[in-house]
């Protein structure tokens, strides 16, 4: 459908992706950040060449669907050239994809950081760990970044596009490494891993510990303590890694692409996210507004035309009736399409106002129109990518 999608500021996504090694796609749930991450990576592979990887944590397997590839897993998989040729595309480079499995990645992390195999096995077998590894301190957020760091370190890819996990809040993602480091250095953790007997002696008079014992029961506290004692052996590795991950995200070769729709709630979250990003010194590369109604829907002149179509639908339907349909039916169709245009115009104007209120200055602002079908293959991703590319 006809619409303009030209970026309103100087840079382009083309330039941004040519200049950076890591692009992190963020935004609140349901705005299309996974699809846009996949579209950006596909475009880079098609147009710029090199080895491009897109990583997602999306549990809904959206990425695999959009790439038209079944069974993308925790390990990076190359999108087969056949998938491109089926879509009539000859890419200059290679496109790779991975879908993060949080549990598998945590297990791998434990094996890497544990001082020996025995401790690793004990941690992996601990019931608390098994229960926890799925949602331990924003574990999706942390593990996504940890994995990003690992892949980037291998130096295999020219560009890595990361889709962030569906957090309660996009900001959680930025704070995950910091929180992980804090967690392992906290005083309470140290208290918990003191053997139970001396804990009672040392802290018996303090109200928290009495309360904790009464609420959770001594046995449960013991279980937690044991778990942390095992975990503590990985302390150095974890903290060092968390700090390194945080540094990588701050480097010049890393940039963020914030995705939002123009609805009130996602837009507000995007604004808050951008504020926090700038306060923490991350690089905001692009803001992509998704599912934007086309510009022509805002035109006053078209609204007047719609108004006249409705006002004169009596005589118009009589005039058009011969060889077409009963006047009453034409009348209804004219009324409906005029009414529909005026309805959507209200939405389009509201969107334009909200877009104007997005008071930030990233290098690139792009908007993506509504597509007539959902994106489910490489051809669709390229079609979408072209909208945001230059």
């Amino acid at each position, binding site marked *: *459908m*006809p619409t303009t999608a030209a970026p309103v500021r100087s840079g382009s996504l083309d330039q941004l992706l040519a200049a950076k090694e890591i692009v992190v796609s963020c935004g*609140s*749930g*349901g*705005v299309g950040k996974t699809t846009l991450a996949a579209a950006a990576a596909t475009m880079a592979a098609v147009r710029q060449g090199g080895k491009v990887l897109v990583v997602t944590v999306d*549990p*809904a397997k959206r990425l695999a669907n959009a790439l038209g590839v079944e069974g993308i897993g925790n390990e990076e998989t190359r999108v087969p050239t056949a998938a491109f040729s089926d879509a009539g595309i000859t890419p200059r480079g290679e496109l790779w994809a991975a879908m993060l499995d949080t549990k598998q990645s945590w297990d791998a992390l434990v094996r890497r950081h544990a001082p020996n195999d025995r401790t690793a096995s004990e941690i992996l077998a601990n019931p608390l760990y098994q*229960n*926890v590894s799925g*949602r331990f*301190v924003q574990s999706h957020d942390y593990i996504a970044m940890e994995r990003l760091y690992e892949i980037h370190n291998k130096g295999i890819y020219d560009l890595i596009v990361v889709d962030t996990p569906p957090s*309660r809040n996009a900001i959680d993602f930025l704070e995950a490494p910091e929180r992980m480091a804090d967690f392992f250095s906290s005083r*309470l953790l140290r208290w918990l891993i003191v053997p139970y007997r001396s804990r009672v002696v040392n802290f018996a008079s303090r*109200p*928290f510990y009495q*309360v*904790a014992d*009464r*609420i*959770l*029961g001594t*046995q*449960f506290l013991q*279980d*937690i303590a044991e778990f942390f004692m095992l975990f503590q052996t990985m302390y150095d590795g974890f903290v060092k890694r968390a700090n390194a991950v945080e540094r990588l995200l701050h480097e010049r070769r890393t940039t963020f692409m914030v995705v939002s*729709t123009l*609805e*009130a*709630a*996602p837009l507000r979250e995007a604004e808050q996210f951008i504020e926090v990003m700038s306060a923490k010194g991350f690089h905001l590369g692009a803001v992509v507004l998704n599912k934007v109604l*086309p510009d022509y*829907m805002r*035109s006053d*002149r*078209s609204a*007047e*035309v*719609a108004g*006249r*179509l409705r006002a004169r639908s009596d005589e*118009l339907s009589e*005039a*058009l009736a011969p060889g*077409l*349909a009963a006047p009453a*039916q034409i009348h*209804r*169709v*004219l009324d*409906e*399409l*005029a009414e*529909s*245009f005026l*309805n*959507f115009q*209200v939405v389009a104007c509201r969107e334009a106002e909200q877009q104007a209120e997005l008071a930030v200055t990233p290098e690139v602002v792009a908007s993506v129109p*509504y597509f007539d*079908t959902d994106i489910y293959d490489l051809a669709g991703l390229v079609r979408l990518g072209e909208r945001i590319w230059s």
Partner: protein
Amino acid sequence: MPADILERKLLFVTGKGGVGKTTVASSLALLAANRGKRTLLCEIDAKGAIADALETGRTRFQPTEVHPRLWAMSMDTEASLREYLRLNLRVPVVGRIGPIARAFEFVATAAPGVREILVVGKLCYEVRERNWDLVVVDAPPTGHVIGELAAPQAINDLVSIGPVRQQTGWMLDILSDPFLTGLCIVATPEEMPVNETIELAARVRSETSVSLAAIVVNRVLPELFGRGEEAVFDALAEPDRAAALAKAVDGDVQPVLDGAGLAVTLRRTGATHLERLRAQVDSAVPLLYVPYLFARSHGLRATRQVAEALSAELGY
């Protein structure tokens, strides 16, 4: 399962981010209050979304009446812990609970389900004490709600004795009774929200004891043309007729025709997703449709309009 979703005592409302979950939760609460029920609306994430939807001041842990028979509160784990200690353990909580809460926060981060149990525990407590006719919860989005609803069972499995074990026992009784508790999933007629709804419906059944009370489909676009009318529209869009129309109204009609074409496409795409939704969830679960609101997307006016639509869908 009761026929009417508002006949339950505890209703969790969830959905993929951005589908209008808070608006639907607020409008269900508003509708219940308007129908004479003493209703409590509780926000879990404390983002202030309920305050926006009902245009009230900021909500707190202590419920405030924001509309006749409608009280609103926002969950606060520290306050909930304080209340729990006071009511259940008779631990004297003097002065600031800050250090205890912080330490507790830490244990809650590390131990599965501890924070969730304070949240769900407070809600179940309100139901057990019969403080309200209905408690509506603006719950976390789809990715997180299972953790919340499954927490009492998880804790029940991990903790073998003591007061927490007893707590989770009666909480489970309330949560697993379909006459008392239900989950309502909000979706929009789009691919991803529908996929997530189908997946969540299956997980709710396999991983929790909570019953699925209804699926609310929000932002359903109106059907533009009836039987045979689409052919008329297509004919009108043909070059000669479009030109005749343009001449008659003295202006370019193409954008108006394009706009209607877009509306038809969006509606049609949405309809295919809804067919998939209907085919893949238990047919006993009612689907309630809320039309797309062109004039307002949020605020009290939108909440009232959604409440009206739901009222019609429920046959009131």
